Each structure stands twice: as C-alpha cells, then as structure tokens.
C-alpha cells in the first residue's frame, strides 16, 4: 500500500489481486447480490486509490480495506437491499468470463455430478442460514467465519470490543447450528 500511495499502479494492482476475492465474497454474503457486490468491490478499491495519498499504515491493510468496505456497505446497504435481485442467465456462474452460464445448463440438459449437487445445496443452505442472522451477528460471522479474519481485526473493522465480537460470533454459530442441523 505504501508503494500504491506513491502512485505505483502496479503495486495497487497487486493489492487488488490479493484482496479482491475476499472483498467480493464479503459483499456477496452481506448483499446476496452478485452485481451489487461487483459494484461495491470496484467502488471500494477506487476509494482506496483516491485515499492512498493520505493512507497511514496504522493497521493491517486488510483491516483498512474491510473498514472501507464496511463503511461503503453502510451507505449503500438500504439501496442494494431494496433493489430487486436480478439473476443473469448469461453471466458466468463461477466468475470466469468464459465459464458456464445458467443458459448453458438449460441447453445441455445434462445433470450435474452428484458431489456438485451436494456442494451446491450445502452452499445454498449456509447462505440462507447466514441471511437469517440479525445484522449484528451476520457482519461478525461474515468477517470471522467466511473471511477468517482474527477476532481482533474484526473488532477493529466494526469498531466494537473484541469480547463483543466473540459473544456475537458464538451466538451466530449457535443459531447457524440450529438452522443447519447436524449436517451443514
């Protein structure tokens, strides 16, 4: 980030490569909207670039980045959540530009391999269960559970004590356990 601060676009691109995936998933688990998540991802990185001259390495870059993302989400949340969710039939399912799309699946008529079906179903159930958490529990779980950030970093990002992070995390996990049953 220090190189990016000095106007090094290559260093900035490296940061993007390293952190764009986790940040996209962060937004996706909050919004459940792929399109909005891409927009939020781009906007967050753009703001980071604009703010780079004033960046001071007081915390890990990931903490700073997710703080920016969280603030953007707070601003955009209402608009994103009240927007009708759109599913693109011809957008790649796996994020790759040339990856298979829903249309491909419809056309081929070929069933997915059984392990893929199980994995997809598991993913869907987890997403639904996480969506059912309260906002406070979900934001902690998305950062500590999905993003695997240390509790201390989560506390800094959200601006709450680490003890509160732990208690919310445990409450989130218990609720997920109840919703998902023995086999997540």
């Amino acid at each position: 980030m220090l190189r990016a601060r000095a106007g090094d676009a290559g260093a900035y691109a490296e940061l993007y490569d390293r952190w764009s995936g986790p940040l996209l998933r962060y937004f996706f688990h909050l919004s459940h909207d792929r399109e909005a998540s891409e927009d939020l991802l781009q906007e967050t990185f753009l703001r980071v670039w604009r703010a780079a001259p004033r960046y001071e390495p007081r915390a890990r870059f990931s903490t700073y980045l997710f703080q920016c993302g969280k603030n953007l989400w707070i601003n955009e949340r209402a608009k994103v959540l009240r927007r009708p969710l759109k599913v693109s039939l011809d957008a790649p399912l796996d994020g790759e530009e040339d990856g298979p799309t829903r249309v491909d699946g419809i056309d081929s008529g070929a069933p997915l391999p059984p392990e893929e079906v199980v994995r997809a179903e598991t993913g869907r159930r987890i997403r639904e269960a996480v969506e059912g958490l309260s906002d406070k529990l979900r934001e902690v779980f998305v950062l500590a559970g999905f993003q695997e950030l240390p509790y201390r970093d989560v506390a800094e990002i959200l601006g709450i004590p680490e003890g509160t992070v732990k208690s919310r995390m445990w409450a989130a996990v218990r609720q997920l356990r109840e919703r998902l049953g023995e086999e997540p």
Partner: protein
Amino acid sequence: MRAPCEERGADLFLLARDRAEPDAATAAHLAACEGCREELVHLRRLAGALPAASRGLRPRPSTKTDLMKEVEAALAAEEAAPPPRRAPSPLLSFWVPAGALAASLLVTVWALQRNGTPPAVSGAGGDVTVRTIFGGPALEGLLPSGLPAGAELAAREVASVHLGPPFDAEVVLGKDARLSLPPRPEGGRSLRLLRGTAWFSPGPGAPLAVRAGEVDVRGSSPFTVELRGGGVVTAIAESGTLAVASGGGSVEGRGPCRVEAEPGGRPGEPVPAEPSDASAWFAYPDLLLELPAPAPGRAREMVLTLRPSVPREIRIAPWDRFDTLFTLRVTHPEKGLSDVPLRGRAVSRPAPVPAGDGTFALGADRPYRLHVDPAALGLAPGRYRVEAVYAAHRSGGTWRGTRASNTVELVVE
C-alpha cells in the same frame, strides 16, 4: 450430549476454523469437558462446509480492467495537468489545492459536537439537519448528521454539506474552514464563519446571512466569504444582491461583484468580480430535470440537462460511473427524504464524453444531458418528488460546487 462451555464457544470455533492444535490449557479443558469436545466436532464440520457458500465466486476480470483504466486515467491526468500561468489569487488558490486534492476526491467533514462524540453516520433529527452531499466521508466514518443547533463544522478537506431547515442552503467549506451553526431559535438563519473560506448557496427562500469575524454578509444568490488574518473579509456574489456590513457602515451591490471589508471600518464599495480570481469557480451550471413523454416503444426516462448560468462557456466535471457527481434527492410523502446517487446502472444514455483534460466545455448551444432510467433507481412503488444535485470536485481549474435542479414528480409503479 452435554452442552459446551459458553465462554469457550468462540475460541472453539477458531480451533475448528483454523484446524489448529489447541494450546495446553485448552487441550486440558477439552480432555475434561465432553460438551466442548462434541462441540468441536460439530464446529469442524460447519467450518469445513463454509467455503461451499462462496465457491467459485471470483471477481470478474472486467471489474479489474475498468478499475485500472480509472487509475491510469487519473495518473495520466495528474501528469498532464498544465502548470498555472500565473500566481493565482488567494481565493482561487484556495479552491485549487494541488496535490492532495488532485489524487483525492474525498470530502471529509469533521463535525465537532458539543459532547465530543463522533457524529452518527446516518440519521437526522433535532433542529438542524446536516448531511453531506458526497460519499467520501464514509471512508472515515465522519458523516455529520442530526447535529445539534450550535454545533461547529470544521472541514479537513474541501467539503460540501447541505444544511436543512431553517437554512435550506448548500455550503462548500474550504480546507480547514470552520463554520458554526447558531443556537435556535434566536439565531435564525445566520451562520458564523469562524475561519477560512466558504461558499454559500441559499435556497429559494430568504437571503442567507453569514457573520465572518466582525463583518456581516448577506446574499440572495450563491456567494463566497473569505475570512483572513486580522478579520479582513472578502465577499463575492455570483448574482443577486450582496450586502456587507461592519462597524463603520454597510454597502450593497449586485452580483457579480466583490466587496472587501475590515473590522470597524466601512466596507469598500462593490467592484465587479474579476474573472481571474472568481470566474473559474463561481459560474455554475443551471440544472433542469424533466420527465418527457416516452418515445413509442421506449421506457420513460428522466432527462437531466445542464446549461451555463452565465452567458459564456464554463467547464464542468462530467458524470462518470464512479463519481456520483449527481445525486437525486428523493422525497416520499411518508418516508421522507433520501439521497440516491446516480450510479452506472441508472444512467440509460450517458452524457457526452469529456475532453482530454477530463472536463466538459458547457455552452449555451452545447448542453450536457444525462438520461436516467427511473426503474433502475431502486425506488419502491409510490409517488416521489425528485430533484437533482450536481456536486463537482475536480482539480485543475475545473468548476466545483453544488447546484440543485427544479423538482419533478415521479410515479414509480
């Protein structure tokens, strides 16, 4: 099955998530606690399944491509920025802080509340509503909102705020400027500039009064007040009336004009504002928001048109998909006011592209139009009153400031 120990729950999840070996104390506890052992097994299963929830979710390559284009364009613009032809006037140099502002479109307002706590990020209430027009402050979480009367605003960078009733005014605070809101109700609409320079755009109601040091300035149209050392004040009006009073008397002029005043002395007579120190920033576009009847077979669009408010060409910072230079102020009769930044998905036909320097030359015969798809604004069905706010912050001599359009009634079905 026994319940796990509550106080260890979150730590157990870490053990499961990180597939880590427990430390000695935890290992001893696990050896003795059946509930926690069982819980750890379940948590490992849960943690192992979590990646399935976001499997294959990777950013599209086009997101990075678009982002890097923006970054490289910004770098190129910085390198290509021509040096100033001459030493700018104090006012102009104030508005064109090079360097930091060139790379940063951030707007940061530090709201100093009396109790010293940081302002809320959102929300309103109280006697005075302050809300920022730009999205920048969110980066630092310093959005002022619902400030109590008598609060002070201090801008760490150039910042634009909307002051709600009773002011109904847009204010652009210069870097390090400080502004105080009067206590209600005796303070009325009078603001107090404590330091620096600020640009004020009164709403359509009564003129706005600003006390700068010991000098009173009152304007009916957009005007700027600069408070310098020794209490010297410069006031410039774009149009309308400008009244300046100090201990030694008062004067009144019509914009575009400039008045200098010192504490205790009689203010100088209004003189025409010089283009060299003002025209770059105090000529604003007029905004017209329309909902024309749709062409056959086409969806209804809102059209936002910009024209110069003065009889000459002015340069504006155009819309792009990242900078929400245009914000729609949407009022619902029951839900109240909300801001909807114009994002890429809502603009059905983009405006003309800017010139190489990133600006657009706006002329009487060269308007600037944005076509907006109302259906993409994310509004729930209902009847809304909508106005557009233009907020430009660009370096390199580009126009900056704010201006609101007329109001139209939009029905979302």
